């Protein structure tokens, strides 16, 4: 358990950690649904990344950040 991988909930923005085996499962299946222990909402890291890319793309942040 020495290394833990933190993930942030896209709804409440609090972060928590997942186990190594779940990290490996996410590497092959990034659409796997996680559940935030704080706000109890389900989310997927893939969708979070998609939403972030969309927001960045629509707002021009991606370009501005380059």
């Amino acid at each position, binding site marked *: *358990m*020495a290394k*833990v*991988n933190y993930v942030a909930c896209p709804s409440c923005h609090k972060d*928590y*950690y*997942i*186990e*190594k*085996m*779940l990290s490996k*499962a996410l590497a092959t299946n990034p659409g796997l*649904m*996680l*559940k935030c*222990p*704080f706000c*109890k909402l389900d989310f997927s890291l893939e969708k979070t990344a998609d939403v972030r890319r969309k927001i960045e793309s629509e707002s021009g942040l991606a370009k501005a950040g380059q």
Partner: protein
Amino acid sequence: MNPCLHSYIEHLERDMPSHVIRIKKEVAPEFEIPAILELVEARKKQPVLIFEKVRNLNGKLSELPVVINLFGSRERLADALGTTVPKLPAEFLVREKRVPPVVVDRAQATVKQVVDIGEAADLYQLPIVTHHEMDLGPYLASPSVWVKDPETGWTNCAILRVYVAGPRHLVVNFNAARHTNYYFQKYKAQKRNVPMILVMGHHPAFFMGAQTKLLTDEPDIIGGFMGEPLEVTASETWGDKFLVPAHAEIIIEAEMSTSELEIEAPFGEYTQYYGGQRLGPPCRVTAITRRKNAYYLDIMPGRADHLLLDAPVIEAYLFNRIKAVVPGVMAVHMPVSGSARLHAYIQVKKSNDAEPKTIIAAALSSDFRLKHVIVVDEDVDVYDEEQVLWAVATRSQWDKDLVIIPGMMGTRLDPSANDIVTTKGGIDATQPVDRQTFPRRISIPESVMSRIKLEDYLSPDALKQL
């Protein structure tokens, strides 16, 4: 009829009344019960707490009182087996024998007084506790989970934490090294779901018997611990093919999937850290049966209630193995400061100066979770942590008395370990065998200590202050 949780609480209230506190004020199952227990523990007391008015997960007042901290005292564990604290590990070894269960008719089974099957089996009717801030939600923290070997028919019993994901929906967690996983893999190979029962609440001797680590038909061993055959009766889901304890407080019957995995955790583990979110097999609840006036037994994770139940089992196994190597070993104590798993204090009346290091090596390889060992002489009480640390302070020189073994198998719940690889160590805090080379410990003459009674010198008011 077998002794049960009801009969044990009646015994405590009658014979050891300072060990039980009933709370009549209404409490919520989310965090409030753990908060009250933590404040009681802060006063260095470990009574059983019985909460009489607790809301269930539907937000209504539950019919079931919640019992917590049943296992939080070594004195109670010893009492439940009719022995004393120092003799508890030895008593484990004496009782670890096979006494097969007997089948009783369901009419005699108190656990069949209320029977809910299918849709009527609603976990949300129970006052299930959420313990720590980052726990994913309510967890069944006390169930003895019974799973049968599909080949031999043997039943494995293990206390597992189980996430309550819905009114009839559970997600289980078990370690790959557990016998539960060994049986689970057999069902998985056969592409079958796993029939399982969750035994919620019974006499403490039942749980101590269920915690032995033998690969056998474990209800037989529970009978050994209870001192009589465990009474069992047919389950609602599988009938005579899966027998359940007749005098448990609550039985949850469920089928565990071997083809799906779902999210569970974070959950507060015994090391007092949160375990990370992970995947576990989901389960569909098929029936819930219980006594009419059932107690809902909870175990407080990471605290004495959780840690001490297992400690005498580990101590007994360690004692047995080390004594086979070094016969002078007198006692083994797994203190709560090491989560009752990671530290062992071992007392020895040594006959040569190589024995302490031999004890350290034997102990560290006997239990994968054990990480640090301190070996002390026969004049040091291993149950008194101050005495043990005094021995370390005055009887060890770490250039010659320290043992360090890197790269051993450990527990992945230790956050300082590299997954399951850990560095273990031990300290020889004993005096040399040749006592003529070592100073003598201070003492007051025994003849004086034995005749002095405080009552003869201090007023009653002064005695009360002590």
